[in-house]
């Protein structure tokens, strides 16, 4: 079994009554010869790494290499615990985990690049907060990772997930699309709705530039991971409400790729444009 476009994937799922994640799992067994349980066990390890990173950042501020960030996850989570979160406890918790995972990444901790290190907070922020809030179990979360992988694969295959090529929309945008599909799937969304969620999430972050201060994966990357997970929640909600993506996912991916190629080099991970060149941002990073 193989598919290279969202249209093929959807036809396959609807024809054989599969979820996106199940189709992705079957593709993997055909591609690699690995067994279903072996693949799920490896994903369980990925999930465990995500949980450990989130727990570390929520327990203590992480001392990062560049020193631009640290302690944000705890600050956010405290307001949630005090019942003050203006965006509600689910989003506050999702954002805290997403931002905390970036703290761990920036302090040379162990993370899962999903799809990249710079966007590694979005998917754990989405999945772990969903599990805490709605009681999803381990197997459901593994299904969520498979759904996310299907979407990430389509984008990596047909466009790019590298900030140096496509800007932050290719990194956090992709992570947001992956998370949106996973959340929609966890709540019983059909394959079509999951793809709507992914398409909507990617459209909503289209054009997002990659402008890391000092060239470090810290700021504004950390906040972008939080907006990535917020966008995923909104996109899942709209898809589950029956609102389609502005265009089918394949067309959204092609549009995102075209936008990425049209971005000037200054806005693609070179730290030569965007917020990276704002005077006070330059003053914060020493000697770059």
């Amino acid at each position: 079994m193989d598919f290279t476009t969202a249209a093929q994937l959807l036809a396959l799922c609807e024809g054989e009554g599969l979820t996106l994640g199940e189709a992705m799992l079957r593709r993997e067994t055909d591609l690699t010869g690995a067994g279903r349980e072996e693949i799920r066990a490896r994903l369980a390890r990925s999930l465990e790494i995500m949980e450990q990173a989130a727990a570390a950042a929520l327990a203590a501020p992480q001392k990062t290499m560049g020193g631009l960030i640290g302690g944000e996850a705890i600050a956010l989570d405290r307001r949630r615990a005090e019942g003050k979160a203006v965006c509600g406890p689910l989003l506050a918790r999702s954002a805290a985990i997403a931002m905390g995972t970036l703290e761990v990444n920036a302090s040379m901790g162990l993370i899962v690049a999903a799809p990249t290190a710079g966007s590694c907070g979005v998917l754990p922020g989405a999945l772990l907060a969903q599990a805490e809030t709605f009681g999803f179990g381990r197997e459901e979360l593994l299904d969520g990772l498979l759904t996310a992988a299907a979407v990430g694969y389509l984008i990596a295959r047909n466009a790019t997930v590298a900030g140096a090529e496509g800007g932050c929309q290719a990194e956090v945008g992709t992570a947001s699309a992956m998370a949106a599909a996973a959340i929609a799937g966890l709540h019983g969304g059909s394959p079509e709705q999951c793809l709507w969620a992914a398409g909507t999430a990617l459209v909503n972050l289209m054009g997002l530039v990659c402008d890391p201060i000092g060239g470090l994966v810290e700021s504004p990357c950390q906040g972008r991971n939080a907006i990535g997970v917020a966008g995923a929640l909104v996109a899942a909600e709209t898809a589950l409400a029956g609102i389609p993506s502005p265009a089918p996912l394949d067309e959204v991916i092609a549009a995102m790729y075209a936008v990425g190629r049209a971005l000037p080099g200054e806005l693609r991970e070179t730290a030569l444009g965007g917020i990276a060149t704002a005077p006070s941002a330059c003053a914060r990073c020493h000697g770059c």
Partner: protein
Amino acid sequence: MKDFSIFDIIGPNMIGPSSSHTAGALRIAQLARGMIPGPIVRADFTLYGSFARTYRGHGTDRALIAGVLGFGTEDSRIRDSFRWAEKMGLRYSFALDTQNRDCHPNTADIRLENAAGETALVTGVSVGGGAAVIRRINGVEIDLTGEYHTILVRHKDTPGVVAAITRTLAENHINIAFMRLYRESRGQMAYTIIEADEDIPQEAAAQIQAHPPVQSALLIPRI
């Protein structure tokens, strides 16, 4: 075209902060390490481009040392690799070259020296997503990724060597996926790089090394 496994998307599992500047740097050093018989006692690094400008904040230096020490991208010892180098008897130095604009922005030269006093000068590039390519060894342009089981044979540029190498592999039931030959200049040293689907056994490498024109035959494990 690349196949894209689930674990290319949900992964790699890695010590942050950057797949290109941390995990990819580690892989350059891991590959370079395979190009000289151990134990390695000294590593001198020269960093170029973006590596030279942002190495400290990305832990590129720690990752390079970790790679020479043989640590993987998931190994939490990467963070303390300076200390581990001391403990494991590896001396090191770093130099920066921010002027050279001809090379890929994420390039490192690594000069390795082993306990026997042999040296290897290796140039590697981190090409994105944690992947790395070795571009040069001892002044000879090569192309080596470590995506397959690889044997690197250094030999005299003389008739019949390649036939002897491939015959030895055939006798060991190794199917060659890719094979490339590079040389310094006519009649001087040459490198044959063979990538195989199967794990190449140590004894096959020893048999290849026994051919008189062969100076060394090193196995570089798939990573």
